């Protein structure tokens, strides 16, 4: 594959950026469809935070990979094989239980990542992380509250949460995969090797699921490949929709 980027720091930053952009897009799809007005506002709010984080990270990636690309070049002019987000963030919204579980799993991971990135040797990443910690703490709280309500709400909501967990849990293994890029980033002090974030993530998630009367599923299937640009089929449709207008008018100003 051709990332068009040089260096572990750039790829490492781009992975985090793509995670934020794709998750933001998925959450934004809830607009006008949420179960309450308050949650319509909350989901869009989280999506906006994530979009802001993505934009900061793309700007930093462009400096690190020295390609001079704009944030829109990253978002709208790369094909599926060039996106390096994890598979979990691209999973379709499903029902509100699926979105809630996805958000709990993602926000807990992202909060641990941002907390660690506040001490990055890359000052810009550290600055982005400092702001993102506050935002992501709220995202995780929101997901936690809904996990408790739905897990320990009605029989139907409990069943839906179990189904959502069964669907999404296998995708969490990829979050903590270590590879040459993450190892080098860790050695350079750019950011943590995701592997190191697992104990904290696992501790929090299992405690919340336990409080929500939900059981952590067992799964031998550990889908992976997002960090190498190998995505799921629905992701192509998401990008097609997102990129269509931008690509229809090449080079114009919006």
């Amino acid at each position, binding site marked *: 594959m051709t990332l068009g980027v040089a260096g572990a720091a750039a790829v490492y930053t781009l992975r985090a950026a793509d995670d934020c952009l794709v998750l933001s897009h998925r959450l934004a799809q809830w*607009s006008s469809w949420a179960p309450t*007005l*308050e949650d319509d506002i909350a989901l869009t709010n989280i999506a906006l935070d994530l*979009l802001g984080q993505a934009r900061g990270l*793309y700007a930093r990636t462009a400096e690190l990979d020295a390609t001079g690309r704009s944030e829109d070049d990253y978002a709208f002019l790369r094909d599926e094989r060039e996106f390096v987000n994890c598979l979990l963030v691209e999973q379709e919204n499903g029902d*509100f239980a699926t979105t809630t579980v996805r958000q709990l799993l993602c926000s807990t991971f992202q909060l641990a990542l941002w907390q660690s990135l506040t001490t990055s040797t890359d000052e810009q990443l550290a600055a982005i992380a400092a702001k993102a910690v506050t935002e992501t703490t709220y995202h995780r709280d929101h997901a936690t509250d809904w996990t408790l309500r*739905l897990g320990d709400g*009605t029989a139907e*909501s409990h069943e839906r949460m179990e189904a959502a967990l069964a669907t999404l849990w296998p995708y969490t293994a990829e979050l903590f995969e270590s590879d040459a890029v993450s190892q080098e980033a860790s050695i350079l002090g750019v950011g943590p090797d995701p592997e190191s974030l697992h104990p904290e993530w696992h501790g929090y998630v299992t405690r919340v699921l336990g409080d929500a009367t939900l059981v952590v599923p067992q799964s031998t299937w550990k889908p992976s490949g997002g960090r190498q640009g190998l995505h799921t089929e629905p992701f192509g449709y998401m990008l097609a929709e*997102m990129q269509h207008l931008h690509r229809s008018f090449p080079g114009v100003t919006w």
Partner: protein
Amino acid sequence: MRSKGQIEHDETDVADPRELEFQALIDSDQRIEPRDWMPDGYRKSLIRQIAQHAHSEIVGMQPEGNWITRAPSLRRKAILMAKVQDEAGHGLYLYCAAETLGVDRSELIDLLDQGRQKYSSIFNYPTLTWADVGAIGWLVDGAAITNQIPLCRCSFGPYARAMVRVCKEESFHQRQGFESLYALSHGTTEQHAMAQDAVNRWWWPSVEMLGPPDTESTHSAQSMAWGIKRFSNDELRQRFIDMVAPQAVVLGLTPPDPELRWNEERGHYDFGKPDFEELRRVVGGDGPCNRQRAAHHLKAQEDGAWVRAAAAAYATKHPAASAAA
């Protein structure tokens, strides 16, 4: 001399000291607050108007939200998401303002879903291109502001206060819409054509959304007497035209009204006659998207029912946790 609020009331009403006190407050431009005594008609009229306003904000999320997933740049996407989120926020304040009159938000939402309360006719038109997002900001929000600024002085306190914040945000949206259309109009030939096409389609529905002509307006006289409405539909329409006509020149876009021109003598723009028959048709349920908007809102409500039921069940099981949340 009869007080201006006493039209349509018989002598028994006039004799009611509470009514006199109520009308004295309105006549001296003071605010009526939720715990104050108020005539049933005033309460009902406000519930109807505030609910319709809230529903408009909520249904209005649909046509604009239609472009969130296709916004052509990350900057425009962030602006649009924030705008649609603001509309949801406005809906929330307005439902809360209506609740101070003794109704429940869920009742009002049910009335919307049963087609027994309306929302602004303008949201029954489709957003077919990206330029429609800019045209809605410029024209629809422009018309909304024209209508809403006088409501900041409405006689009912909670509605007036909600309007102050809503108007600030709507003014911001109108400027964003103008700026977005300006970028298109001054972009490539194709972008300019897209902007002009959007203005062609949104101009007249925006002029019409200020309501039927004064001669046919059913609620206006009483609402004005009660200090809810301050200006007639036709006065507001003239204000709107006077605001946007010169803005169109700056945008480099031509409103689809051959009769639009400055009238030195009147000190206002002259404009053509809106198609009020079309307005009646769309308000009556036969606009391009009435069915789709209603079905969308109803489906979101139905899809979310199990979530709201779960939240209620959890609150019953864990009252302390729910109170803290």
